């Protein structure tokens, strides 16, 4: 059953195109809606078991030979994510049924969305890291397809490609990390890895493993400096942004970090990397968000920054921090989902998301304005909303993290709370911007493409639900503290958690931090115009987007250059490369294996005319090198061959000599014939450099082959067969010419078949010529 809840979205996705085709009158969203709802209800039924501290494990064999099984595992953490995925999924599908017009390519949209839902459930429920990776990449793929949903917009395509490239690159890094984990611990199962945590920590591969796994998590969760894809991903339809790019997919990286906390956490490396990157992301994302003018862009950077906040907490990893992380993750899904949907409504009703054009919408869209108020104030961390509580816990956790072991970055401990406050000030500012610039102030109706009015009721249901959660959890945190937060935190820390969340702790550092945030935030917001000048001072060239664009633009150019450099299309170049490579490898082997050896013993004396013949060969070879015309070169080549056959005669091998002569004659005349028939070749000068390389390569290959021949000659591991023939050709074959006896007697059958083959070939050639002649005669 559990497996079915992961597979069901995929199965239903197959049906969607048919529903779309045969029932076009009904919005496809209505058919899809029951799927996430059913799964959500089914998964919720696991809650009592989780409260009893039970764990649910179901296994199906997948690739047993590699120890990779499709094992699903439900504990507090995975259930929290699974519930977020399915319940928010339900709300998003409901919202999309109003948001997307029936004329859009709804079939594609819901296929991709269901695919994503199934994949995401797979990520959070898998026990096996390889299976997790499989689903991980599927979420990237479906995100790619959803961002590119409006493929006719250039920005969409750019955003889709960017997100795909960055997250897939991270995914491969993560896979490499998974492989390393396997190398260390010999298993892909997360449960078994947790048992072997001490082995992994002690391994010398620990650091590379950690870095690779974190690369996967950071790219997916849009952590600095990989966050650049998320703002561009906002080209997706708003329901997608609300679902994938704020509530679920971008939290997959957080899930991975939380899931592997028992395996990898607890070292200074972990603390520095996870918290360091997290806190930078928090500050940077919030800082940049203030500059944005597009509602969704603000929300995107805000998501980046909030993810950084949770990442920081996971890095700190104390019981308090983990609880805060889980709690804030839950809260963020509620208020950010709500805000995205409201942004979608504003876009839908007013026709723009530009805050410079918007303003005073509260009067026209009171319900949306209320929702936005709840969302933004929760995000800013103002009571009585849920964001206040978790942000308070965040401050507390950073404050108490000072005593942890930061390795060589010991100054990070005290700085952490300061950075947390700084990031939160920025968060406060953009939250205020988001609400006041959109819904308060003067209306500029003349600048809006549409006349705004309140959204249809159906469209409001989902944000209302999310907004209500933000308020309810804010007022009664115990609703979720023991039921959802504590089990999830226990799954990370592996010790029982007693979670008590309350408003008033007395005058503690966290409260002072909150007061600082609100005070300074209000001050800067009041003087916002002045603050915005800060951004003008930032150097543009250092932007990470430029870096990404630079790589993606430079890569094709650079590899184009490599291609142009060696894929010339010229046969001569190819041969030169291949032969050069061969002579290098052969030469290296000969040298390293001591293969260069000359055996001067047992050699015949060299007669003076033999020197002469060799001199002629050498001369002919040099003629080939420097010949101006091809004809001369061919004739010189022929001379080499003929002189070699003369050498054969001197060594009393007339049959060999004869063969060699015939071959030489035929090849030279064929060459000449071919050149006679070919059109006159261009008489362009061969460049000296080309010529030099020609000589070098051919010289090298010639020398190497000579050395190979010597080496082969020196190797006499056993008696040659020649002795047998010499001894027996007269005794058994009755002939004195050994070669003849071999041909007609010892290997008589071979000779016969050879002749047969030759005869058949001759007949074939005769037939071809004859055919050709009759054709011409016709």
């Amino acid at each position, binding site marked *: 059953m559990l497996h079915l809840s992961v597979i069901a979205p995929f199965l239903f996705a197959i049906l969607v195109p048919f529903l779309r085709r045969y029932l076009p009158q009904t919005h496809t969203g209505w058919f899809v809606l029951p799927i996430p709802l059913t799964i959500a209800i089914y998964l919720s039924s696991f809650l009592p078991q989780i409260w009893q501290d039970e764990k649910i494990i179901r296994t199906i064999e997948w690739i047993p030979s590699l120890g990779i099984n499709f094992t699903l595992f439900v504990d507090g953490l995975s259930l929290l994510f699974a519930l977020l995925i399915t319940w928010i999924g339900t709300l998003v599908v409901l919202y999309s049924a109003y948001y997307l017009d029936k004329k859009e390519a709804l079939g594609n949209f819901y296929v991709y969305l269901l695919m994503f839902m199934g994949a995401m459930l797979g990520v959070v429920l898998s026990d096996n890291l390889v299976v997790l990776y*499989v689903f991980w990449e599927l979420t990237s793929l479906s995100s790619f397809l959803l961002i590119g949903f409006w493929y006719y917009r250039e920005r969409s395509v750019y955003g889709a*490609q960017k997100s795909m490239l960055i997250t897939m690159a991270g995914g491969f890094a993560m896979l490499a990390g998974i492989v390393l984990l396997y190398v260390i611990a010999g298993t892909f199962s997360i449960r078994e890895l947790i048992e072997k945590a001490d082995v992994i920590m002690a391994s010398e591969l620990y650091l590379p493993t950690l870095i690779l796994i974190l690369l996967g998590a950071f790219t997916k969760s849009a952590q600095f400096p990989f966050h650049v894809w998320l703002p561009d991903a906002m080209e997706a339809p708003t329901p997608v942004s609300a679902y994938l790019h704020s509530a679920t997919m971008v939290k997959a990286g957080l899930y991975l970090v939380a899931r592997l906390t028992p395996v990898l956490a607890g070292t200074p490396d972990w603390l520095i990397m996870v918290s360091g990157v997290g806190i930078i992301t928090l500050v940077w994302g919030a800082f940049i968000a203030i500059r944005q003018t597009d509602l969704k862009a603000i929300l995107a950077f805000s998501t980046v920054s909030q993810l950084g906040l949770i990442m920081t907490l996971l890095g700190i990893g104390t019981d308090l921090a983990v609880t805060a992380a889980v709690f804030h993750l839950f809260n963020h899904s509620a208020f950010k989902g709500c805000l995205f949907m409201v942004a979608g409504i504003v876009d839908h009703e007013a026709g723009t998301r530009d805050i410079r054009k918007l303003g005073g919408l509260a009067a026209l869209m009171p319900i949306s304005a209320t929702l936005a108020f709840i969302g933004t104030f929760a995000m800013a961390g103002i009571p009585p909303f849920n964001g206040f509580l978790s942000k308070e816990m965040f401050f507390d956790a950073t404050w108490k993290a000072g005593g942890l072991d930061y390795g060589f970055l010991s100054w990070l401990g005290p700085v952490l709370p300061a950075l947390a406050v700084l990031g939160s000030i920025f968060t406060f500012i953009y939250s205020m911007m988001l609400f006041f610039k959109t819904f308060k102030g003067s209306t500029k109706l003349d600048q809006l493409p549409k006349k705004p009015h309140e959204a249809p009721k159906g469209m409001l249901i989902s944000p209302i639900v999310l907004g209500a959660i933000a308020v309810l959890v804010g007022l009664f945190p115990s609703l979720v503290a023991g039921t959802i937060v504590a089990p999830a935190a226990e799954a990370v820390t592996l010790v029982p958690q007693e979670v008590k969340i309350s408003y008033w702790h007395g005058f503690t550092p966290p409260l002072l931090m909150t007061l600082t945030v609100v005070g300074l935030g209000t001050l800067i917001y009041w003087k916002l115009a002045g603050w915005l000048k800060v951004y003008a001072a930032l150097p543009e060239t250092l932007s990470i987007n430029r870096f990404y664009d630079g790589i993606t633009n430079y*890569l094709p150019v650079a590899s184009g250059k490599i291609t142009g450099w060696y894929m010339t299309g010229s*046969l001569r170049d190819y041969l030169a490369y291949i032969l050069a490579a061969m002579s290098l*490898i052969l030469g290296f082997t000969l040298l390293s294996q001591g293969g260069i050896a000359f055996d001067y013993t047992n050699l015949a004396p060299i007669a003076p005319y033999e020197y002469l013949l060799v001199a002629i060969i050498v001369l002919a070879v040099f003629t080939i090198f420097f010949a101006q015309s091809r004809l001369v070169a061919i004739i010189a080549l022929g001379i080499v061959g003929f002189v070699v056959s003369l050498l054969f005669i001197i060594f009393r091998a007339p049959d060999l000599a004869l063969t060699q002569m015939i071959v030489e004659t035929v090849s030279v005349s064929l060459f000449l014939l071919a050149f006679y028939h070919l059109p006159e070749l261009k008489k362009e000068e061969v460049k000296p450099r080309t010529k030099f390389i020609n000589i070098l390569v051919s010289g090298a290959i010639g020398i190497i082959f000579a050395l190979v021949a010597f*080496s082969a000659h020196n190797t006499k*591991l056993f008696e040659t067969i020649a002795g047998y023939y010499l001894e027996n050709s007269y005794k058994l074959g009755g002939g004195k010419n050994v070669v003849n006896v071999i041909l007609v007697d010892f290997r008589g059958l071979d000779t016969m078949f050879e002749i047969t083959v030759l005869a058949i070939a001759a007949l074939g050639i005769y037939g071809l010529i004859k055919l050709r002649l009759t054709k011409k005669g016709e």
Partner: protein
Amino acid sequence: MLDFNFSYLTIEILTAILGIGLLILGLLVPKEHRKGFGYLTSAGLIGILVGTFYMFGINESTNKGMFIADDFSVFFKQLFLVAAILVTLAANDYVEKLEEGKSEFFALIVFATLGMMVIASAGDLITMFVGIELMTISFYCLVGLKKRDSKVAEAGIKYLLLGGVSSAVILYGLTLVYGTTGTTVITEIANRVAQGSLAPALLLGIIFLIAGFGFKISLVPFHMWSPDVYEGAPTPVTSFLATGSKAAAFVAFIRIFLDGMPSLQDNWLALFIGLAMLSIIIGNLVAIPQTNLKRMLAFSGVAQAGYLMTGMVAGNAAGVAGIGFYLFIYAVGTVGAFAVATAFYNATGTDDIKDMSGLAQRNPLMAASLLVAMLSMAGIPPLAGFAGKLFLFAAVVEKGYLWVALVGLVMSMMSVYYYLNVAKAMYMNDPVDDTPITLSGSMKLVLLSSVVVTLILGVWPTPLSDLALAAAQVLGL
């Protein structure tokens, strides 16, 4: 006296009969009625494929070890046959348009398949060389089949010349191996090599063999021919060249090196690793700027050859099984991709990626099958290519060469880029010309089966991987 069990050659004999029969039939049937040879060939090959299942479990050799009928060879014969069947099915439309050589085309495909089968079953270097030449010469003819087209002629000449060089190099290598071990039977070579001292000449022979087969596999730096030839050759031929020929050369590699010279591993391993790394890196890098689909697939094929070589580096049963599995899915995917190229060329007369803009609107099946094939080659789960890479990399990691697998992973990441560019063109750009492309029934069958097999083996790889492992274990590695 003649120790020769002809029943072991049943499959080869049947294939030879099919090939010769096609040739004779081509002469008997008047020119204007020469249609349906493709279907006949496919039907014949399917029959032979069914027959191969009866060859499992023999595991014997005949004629003093010259010919081996083991499960390993049967597995690869089935691979060749599947590739040949898909190629012949996809080639029908193309061949119909040919002016001459309609029946010869299919006969040559069958002969090339026969050559590959002989390589798979060769227990002797000479038998193997005969197989190689039968395959290669058939390909020379196939590549240059449309000889009046200047691009084809150029490809044909290049393939002939460079192929001739590589055959010569292989032969030289075989000679040196024979000269230093005194035998051509592979099992005997293994014995001699294991006992005897190591002659430098034997090492040189090994290098010649690696270079020669490296050419057939198109490993860097012996790969230069492949983009030019892949681009110029008739696309169905290209697809067979890219799959069958490569697979056959790998079989030869496995037989000669893993079966014949396991004790010399220290000597050839470094070279294998070097060539694998070079191929993976250069193949993927250079595929990026390609604007022609067939050239891009050629370079990606170079990279794929590099991935396959990691299985050779592993050198154990798991590695060989990985090679078998990967070659199978690579064959299915590549034939699918080239089938799309064939159909696209038939409809539009171009192979350029920019002309494929908006293909998803013109023919969704073509776009989908090319996308699936490419994502599988990039190793994106849950497609079969991912499972294949998993097997290969797991084997090589097991062997202790972690970094080889890591380089493979990094470059797989890079390959997503150029595959994605094609996907982007097909799915997100506006078509230059939005007339729908229609496909023939057999072409649809090829595309569908390529997609379905790639998907199913990705989600459920165990049946094929078990088969591949069983085949690999026969070698006793």
